[in-house]
């Protein structure tokens, strides 16, 4: 397993959100984390990316225990999260956003090459490179956020609700973008309310209910019945 979450528990203050959650992600996989609001999906991503410390259990990445690593260290290892709500640097230009995404590549040729590659993959962004990211539409900002994450040349890209608050056209563009990312072999973990998006992209799915994994299976075996229970129970 490239990313191995073993019996993790986590929470905020006195509230326990995750209980003994285990998730395995193989290299090249795209894994969906499904479940209703408050099931603990975003919390799980925060534990994986290091924004929230685990209270129990371990997180392993490329065979190494990274449970104690800071968020910054994990980015350095190639474990990169695209946050919910996009969180682009609004006062900075699109290009500056991308350059910051590539901090772990250093300031040399490697990052410049990666930047050129991003502009080839996202021609839309090349035309906007000097605009302030805060002035873009939601869909455009989501592309900036994804491209910023990809700038780090991640081994695993964690996406938290990439379609949230976007128009249907923008959602389609995000799906196309992520299909492209998957085709380059980048491993992904996606937390998403939009089940359609998960079925188009992901091979495996984990269903969370009240902070516990209730179903772990391949996406094509995930039954409508189980999904209905996950979201409406």
């Amino acid at each position, binding site marked *: 397993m490239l990313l191995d979450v073993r019996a993790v528990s986590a929470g905020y203050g006195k509230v326990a959100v995750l209980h003994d959650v285990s998730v395995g992600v193989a290299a090249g996989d795209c894994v969906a984390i499904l479940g209703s609001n408050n099931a603990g999906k975003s919390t799980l991503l925060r534990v994986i*990316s290091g*924004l929230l410390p685990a209270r129990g259990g371990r997180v392993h990445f490329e065979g190494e225990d990274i449970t104690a690593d*800071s*968020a*910054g260290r994990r*980015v*350095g290892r190639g474990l*990169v*999260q*695209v*946050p919910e709500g996009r*969180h*682009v*640097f*609004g*006062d*900075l230009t699109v290009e*500056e956003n991308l*350059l*910051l*995404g590539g*901090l*772990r590549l250093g*300031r040399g040729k490697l990052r410049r090459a990666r930047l050129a590659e991003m502009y080839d993959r996202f021609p839309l962004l090349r035309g906007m490179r000097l605009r302030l990211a805060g002035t873009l539409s939601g869909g455009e900002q989501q592309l900036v956020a994804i491209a*910023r994450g990809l700038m*780090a040349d991640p081994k695993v890209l964690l996406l938290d609700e990439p379609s949230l608050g976007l128009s249907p056209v923008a959602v389609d563009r995000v799906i196309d973008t992520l299909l492209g990312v998957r085709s380059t072999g980048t491993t992904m973990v996606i937390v998403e309310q939009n089940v359609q998006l998960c079925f188009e992209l992901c091979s495996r799915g984990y269903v969370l209910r009240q902070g516990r994994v209730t179903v772990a299976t391949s996406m094509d075996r995930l039954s409508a019945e189980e999904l209905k229970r996950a979201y409406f129970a």
Partner: protein
Amino acid sequence: MLLVAGIVQGVVLGVILALVTSGMTLIYRVTGIINFAHGGLMALAMYLAYDARRYWNVDPLVSALAIAPLMGVVGWALYQAVIRPVRRQHHLLAVQILLGLSFVIEALLLMRYGADMRTVESVFSGRFVTVLGVGIELTRAVAFGISLLGLTVLGVALKWSDWGRRLRATAADELAAYLVGISVIRVEAWAWGIGVGILGLVGPVLADVFKMTPDMGLKYAIVALVVLIIGGGRTMAGTIAGGLLVGLSETLGLLYLPGSYGGLMPYALLAAVLVINPRAAIAMVRGR
């Protein structure tokens, strides 16, 4: 002719105030805290230059080269020891601590140096230059030049270097900063180090331009705060505009208004800004 003199003097004062305030703006933008000890720390830097002159006979323009990094370390240590432990608390707690620090610095300076007004002479003291037909003290002109240089270097570093991008990114969105691998704590410490270090550069240079008294700190903290608010508190360009507006309004006010009413002009300007755009003040209260 009087108008030209007022404008030249106002621009010179404005640029100097802009550099003094730039450190406050940097600290405010990155860590969300108004440094009420800003003036007190500048006074400290000025008195260090005074001691360097008295004990080792070092010109303040030279001692500034040592005092700037020293004050940078002071700012860094201040952040690590005092600000960092309360960074998740209400920001008024940090403001209270800094205001208290300002009074402590004032008391220490008073104990050591007494209440007399002092200056530190440099090689340029007592000489004048003529700019656009207006005579200016050379020390003031030098302070203007150094301020211009300082603002340029700071502006270029913030805009074009990875260091500057890290600072601006942290100011814009702390969560996203963590997620691109920025060490937010280190960036905040940098902001304090540079913000206070600037005072170590500009303080000694001003030691023969502004008269030193131990109680000057709070006054200059307020002046810097006025510049920051008038400039919008967000960008270095805004801070420079704020400095120029305050400098010009004070100098022109003193020239054209009766008595010393001109000295009130910066505060009238502040009131006007707050009436026209009260959101400026609301943004300050909310922090960042």
